[in-house]
């Protein structure tokens, strides 16, 4: 039963990550794959505050989210002032740089990882209580993203994403919209990091590298970008699918690359065969609108 609870917790965490990532990459059109580093920041900050500072865990989790929020502003603000493309490269530099940095800081466990992170709820109320907490946060995240993207703020994001020049000509501040969406998405990932840290109680810098980026991107692309339920379906399918491979009894040296091959291969297949994902948002990947193309 513990195994199933753990899978449910992972599904919940990846629903949070995929939905918040879809807000950034899908709804706002910001090119970044560094979502896992904000997940890591939330996890490490929450773990260190609870372990070393004695901060109550719910507060530490929120502080983790706030740290991710602030860090994302620091990354996004200078790079977005230049061009959207630069956000991607700056964020990759930030992601891999911070992982490399964390590997050399012994006070947070270094490359060997941070252990003995205080647990939350599990010891007092059992694992089911933590499953309920994570799934509740996941549902809240999905509803929040849906609310945000379907209201006036969502229309503003869509307008900016579809025609940034026209958006700016109307006196709107595109940089502010981009930075705020990036920060909101990253902040949510930070809270997910806190939830991860206090259940699994072990953090290692390499967990939050490009493999994790590929996994979250796969969930969004396969599920359907810029849709409410696409990232949810992607997260559920792509959390359950690798579990099937683990039952094959393959050695870890094969299992890791095989999962990576599966994730990246699935994205490639979907990119060419069904670019809109399992759930389709209209004309998601086109460089020009359908009408423009019809006009030639």
């Amino acid at each position, binding site marked *: 039963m513990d195994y199933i609870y753990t899978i449910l917790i992972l599904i919940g965490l990846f629903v949070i990550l995929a939905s918040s990532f879809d807000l950034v990459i899908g709804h706002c059109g910001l090119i970044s794959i560094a979502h896992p580093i904000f997940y890591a920041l939330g996890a490490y900050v929450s773990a260190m505050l609870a372990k070393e500072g004695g901060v109550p865990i719910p507060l530490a989790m929120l502080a983790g989210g706030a740290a991710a929020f602030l860090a994302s502003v620091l990354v996004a603000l*200078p790079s977005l002032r230049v061009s959207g493309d630069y956000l991607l490269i700056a964020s990759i*530099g930030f992601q891999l740089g911070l992982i490399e940095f964390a590997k050399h800081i012994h006070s947070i466990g270094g490359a060997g990882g941070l252990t003995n992170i205080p647990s939350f709820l599990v010891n007092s109320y059992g694992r089911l209580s933590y499953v309920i907490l994570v799934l509740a946060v996941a549902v809240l995240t999905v509803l929040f993203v849906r609310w945000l993207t379907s209201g006036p703020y969502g229309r503003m994001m869509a307008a900016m994403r579809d025609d940034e020049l026209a958006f700016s000509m109307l006196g709107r501040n595109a940089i502010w919209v981009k930075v705020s969406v990036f920060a909101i998405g990253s902040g949510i990932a930070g809270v997910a990091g806190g939830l991860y840290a206090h259940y699994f109680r072990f953090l290692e810098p390499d967990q939050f590298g*490009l493999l994790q980026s590929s996994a979250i991107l796969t969930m969004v692309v396969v599920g359907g970008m810029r849709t409410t339920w696409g990232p949810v379906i992607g997260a559920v399918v792509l959390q359950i699918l690798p579990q099937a491979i683990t039952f094959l009894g393959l050695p870890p040296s094969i299992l890791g690359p095989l999962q990576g091959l599966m994730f990246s291969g699935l994205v490639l297949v979907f990119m060419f065969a069904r670019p809109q994902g399992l759930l389709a948002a209209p004309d998601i990947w086109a460089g020009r609108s359908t009408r423009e193309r019809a006009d030639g």
Partner: protein
Amino acid sequence: MLNATVISQILWTSLATSSYFVLFAVAFALVLKVNKVFNFAQAGMMTCAFYSAYVAVRVLEFSGPVGFVAAIAGGAAMAFILERFGFSVLRHRRASPMFVFIFTLIASQFITYAMTMIFGTWPTTIFASMFWPVSIIANVAVSAWDLPALGATILVLVVLWAFLRFTRYGQFMIAVADNADLAELYGIRKDRVLMVSMLVAGIICGIGMFLYGTRAQVQPAAATELMLFAVAATILGGIGNLWGAALAAVVLGLVQNSSILFIPSAWQGFLLYAFLFFAIVLFPSGFHLPERSKRLKRTVVAPVVVSDAKEG
């Protein structure tokens, strides 16, 4: 202790090791300039080039020159596959730049995982030994690898310059880089030019990975880090400026190698990402050479002044 000999040694080693960094940076900058793609799949081309040479030399036990040709063939073959079945298809679908970029990233990851499945994660080299005989020249240790590597890099740069300057396809590449639509109106076959650009980048990556693989250990994920170095150099050199990227790669190599004097060696890897981040934040348009711009302005302005004088 810091003295002239130590400084000379660090400068020489940095210059020698920057040879492959220069090649990776030029390959990345070329595709960005002509194809207008941040080609992160270059890491896949590099990985493929290395393992082609590895299979030729270590598995099939062919000689070094055969391994060299295999590296070039591997890099070029992967470049062909990426362009023919990836970029070309996406271009015709008018995919957004974000989509194309994600494709490069995922393709690179896919190749890395495929190579990990085949060759494992254990680091390896093209030759059984990566130790080269060393000669002492003016108190500086110069390995037998250094001079051929530097020579090969300079030769590649000269050939590339001559190719872009004097050959038909080189000129087509410059035309497409400047204005692809206008180039097509003049009858230049854009798809073919973009394929040539990718193949040239693949060949350069092949040469670079052969040099790297004969000096350092490589595992499937290593190319990603090398490629990020090329990205930082391309940005610092100024996007669209191949020779600026090459120069920036030399400077970055020098800074990274000489950093051992100031910081523990364990932190050298971290420097790369710091470069990448600060290159974007502080020098998003790269470095510019003001004198060259002035000279260019004079050559453009001069005929106008003469014609005005004649009219007067």
